[in-house]
């Protein structure tokens, strides 16, 4: 089986990997205390026990997690798994500066001190080799912590794994697959782990085929190869070039599908500066946006919607959109009137965007719209690598522009990081709209503490909060991401799972 991938994984080392390409290989080669069910749709968002025997016991105050390691587990090199390996893994990810390490340092007791070199171990993690018990103490309750434990970066590695980047020769792990033959930026293999039969964790399929991944930055030829069956799997995170789409839809409709991902696209609206400090001006933007147009710019791979939380994420509101049906033509006259009423007509606006298609095209459309409804908009396109650093720099004072978010894990708090007043910082600011709303803060204080495993009890409260955000028009959401599931003729299309967190689940790939 050949997988064609448009961009190389950032790091195949699970302690460092953060991109979807890395996660694709890592989550089936490295298993943490918890992991996700290998199912499509919302069923796949469900946490299941990984190397732990169960989902763990959480203390009533939400600060202590207790897990027990399964007995008799071995790594892909045949060595036994120890409880202490968990502590080593977390320490390693912190020392290697994993991109999401704040999930550890910000939550686990003593992790910050360890990071700063003030301690040799993390005081909040204690393990017992005899009982296999692992106890984790948190600084304060953090509801999404079970999801954090499911990150490949928290997946157990042997305690003797060196604290260096091992992407070219990934360490042994617990999982149905293992990563071998790495040629950086060119290719790697994900083959079945011969020791997996000894572990055989329930809910994790053994896998049917070995996978050879080739990095092909040209998505056009990537798609062509899958279309003519010289490659088997089109990387779900890549975009099918619009010019090939008609052919794929006509000639390969039985092995192509648009899959929804839990991600949103939006234009941020800076609430701290003119003109979008005016709620009416923000409403005007949301009223005027034509989502049908924006969807066409992404070759139709955009599901319409106006709420910040995407479908598939608990808390996505079921109600109607407050400022018009996103499937229909927008009310431009109303939008113009709102701009007039806001008193912001003629205000100069700079629209920021990245370079890569179709982001620049989104901004082009958006700039045209802002001018149409009464602002004086100009477009500013900057290099992808400096984009988030630029709009996330408070001194740029970016008024509006393109932004997006894809779930790290299925808990709404992951998205609300972008609307949390506490995440506003001078550099690397993620709250691009600079929303400082007491109501949001009060709600988050409660909701963020509810463990993911008990999310069902607060879903309606998340829905109410998300509806509130849509009414306030803090961001102009213009749709939710869709990605291609596109295989060669050889693969059993129906049996292959498109996972809500990790996309194509390679353990479910099988020949017809």
């Amino acid at each position, binding site marked *: 089986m050949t997988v064609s991938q448009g961009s190389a994984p950032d790091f195949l080392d699970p302690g460092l990997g953060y991109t979807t390409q890395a996660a694709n290989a890592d989550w089936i080669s490295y298993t943490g205390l918890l992991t996700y069910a290998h199912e499509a749709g919302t069923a796949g968002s469900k946490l299941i026990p990984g190397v732990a025997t169960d989902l763990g016991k959480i203390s009533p105050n939400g600060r202590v997690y207790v897990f027990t390691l399964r007995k008799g587990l071995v790594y892909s090199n045949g060595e036994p798994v120890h409880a202490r390996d968990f502590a080593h893994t977390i320490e390693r990810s912190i020392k290697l500066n994993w991109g999401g390490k704040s999930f550890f340092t910000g939550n686990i007791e003593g992790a910050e001190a360890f990071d700063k070199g003030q301690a040799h171990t993390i005081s909040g993690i204690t393990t017992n080799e005899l009982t296999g018990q692992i106890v984790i103490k948190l600084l304060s309750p953090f509801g999404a912590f079970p999801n954090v434990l499911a990150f490949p970066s928290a997946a157990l590695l042997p305690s003797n794994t060196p604290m260096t980047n091992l992407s070219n020769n990934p360490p042994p792990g617990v999982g149905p697959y293992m990563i071998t033959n790495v040629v950086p930026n060119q290719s790697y293999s994900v083959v079945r782990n011969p020791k997996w039969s000894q572990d055989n964790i329930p809910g994790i399929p053994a896998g049917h085929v070995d996978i050879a991944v080739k990095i092909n930055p040209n998505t056009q030829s990537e798609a062509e190869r899958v279309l003519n069956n010289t490659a088997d799997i089109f990387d779900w995170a890549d975009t099918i070039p619009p010019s090939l789409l008609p052919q794929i839809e006509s000639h390969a409709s039985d092995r192509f599908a648009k899959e929804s991902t839990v991600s949103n696209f939006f234009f941020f609206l800076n609430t701290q500066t003119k003109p979008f400090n005016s709620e009416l001006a923000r409403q005007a933007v949301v009223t005027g946006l034509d989502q049908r147009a924006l969807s066409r710019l992404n070759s*139709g791979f955009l599901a319409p919607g106006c709420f910040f939380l995407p479908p598939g994420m608990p808390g996505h509101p079921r109600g109607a959109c407050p400022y018009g049906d996103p499937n229909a033509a927008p009310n431009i006259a109303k939008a113009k009137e709102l701009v007039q009423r806001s008193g912001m007509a003629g205000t100069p606006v700079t629209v920021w965007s990245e*370079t890569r298609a179709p982001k*620049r095209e989104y901004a082009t459309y958006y700039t045209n719209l802002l001018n149409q409804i009464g602002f004086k908009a100009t*477009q500013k396109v900057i290099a992808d690598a400096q984009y988030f650093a630029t709009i996330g720099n408070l001194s740029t004072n970016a008024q509006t522009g393109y932004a997006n978010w894809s779930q790290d894990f299925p808990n709404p708090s992951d998205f609300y990081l972008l609307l949390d007043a506490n995440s506003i910082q001078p550099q690397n600011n993620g709250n691009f709209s600079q929303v400082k709303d007491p109501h949001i803060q009060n709600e988050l204080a409660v909701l963020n503490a509810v463990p993911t495993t008990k999310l069902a009890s607060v879903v309606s409260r998340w829905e109410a909060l998300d509806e509130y955000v849509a009414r306030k028009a803090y961001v102009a959401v213009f749709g939710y991401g869709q990605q291609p599931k596109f295989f060669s003729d050889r693969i059993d299309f129906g049996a292959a799972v498109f996972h809500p967190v990790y996309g194509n689940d390679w353990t479910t790939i099988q020949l017809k």
Partner: protein
Amino acid sequence: MSVASGLPAAPAGREGATPGLGEVILGPGAVTPGLGPYRLAWRRLRGNRVALAFGLLFLAIALVSVLAPLYAHQIAKTGPDENHITETIKVGGRTLEVVSPGGIPIGPTWRSRFFLGADQNGRDIAVRLLYGGRNSLFIGAVATTITMVLAILVGLLSGYSRGPVDGVLSRAMDVLWAYPAVLLGVALGVVFALGGIDLGLFHLQGSSLLVPAVIVGVVYVPYVAKALRGQVLGLREREFVDAARAQGLGHVRIMLGEILPNLASTIVVLVPLMLANSILREASLSVRGAGVQPPSPSWGTMIAEGIRFIPAAIHTTLVPGIMLMLAVLGINVFGDGLRDALDPRARVRVGRSPVSAEIET
């Protein structure tokens, strides 16, 4: 010193040691007494209908670009930046979508609206083509001027003086060329996109059209300078230069008066090449934020944006590509004619009668 083949030393070459342009040695049978050299050249040029036609072609392209607003308002009835993504248009009784739900823009309708089709944002390509012509031709002209002027200076100084001056200049050119042109352009583009260039008296806004023009202009100096230096190295050993030196002419006069005219044909050839090149290179800067700022059009950016629609909407690249080709072709053929008119000996063809005679009849 003798010529490669051991032929007897030729008399002073070209405009050579004979001072004053009025006494240009003309090609066989072309001597027309009583006329100045430029009037003579003009006469010859006038006779070269092909060259004139192509020159006019270029002028016509420039002219319609200037008149872009007229076309936009009177015929297409849309501006260059106006998006019509979700609109429909009637073509021959059928209602077509300007951009399909799959994102493919409509091809040429050959009607007043979307005459040459639309782009991915549902903008009228014909309108953008004309507006883009203004930006592209401006950038092309400025960049080419910068390249040619600097390259001529460097090539002359370097090839003529040789020794340490050549060493320093040539290595400086090596440094500049060592950056793959795309890389240097992009790196500078990224730097200037946000900040602009500030060199004391000389300040450029990041969004100014001069930014890409200056970057592209400078980046290609080594390319042209090297070619010219090679020629100068050969020319400076020629007899007419020795003769000029013997006459006591200064170095500057020799360089400008004796050597430069002999570079004319190379320069005339390189100008259209550099023009095309700089118009295309601007696109790679635009996508990094240092070229023509979107949504403003330029031929280069139109081509670059259209690449991902090959083959389903190939008109998005072909239309600006062909326009660019016509413009460059116009300048090129006209330039050839101009050079032939100024220096008719170049027309002497292998074993035949002069071509000039053929064309003039």
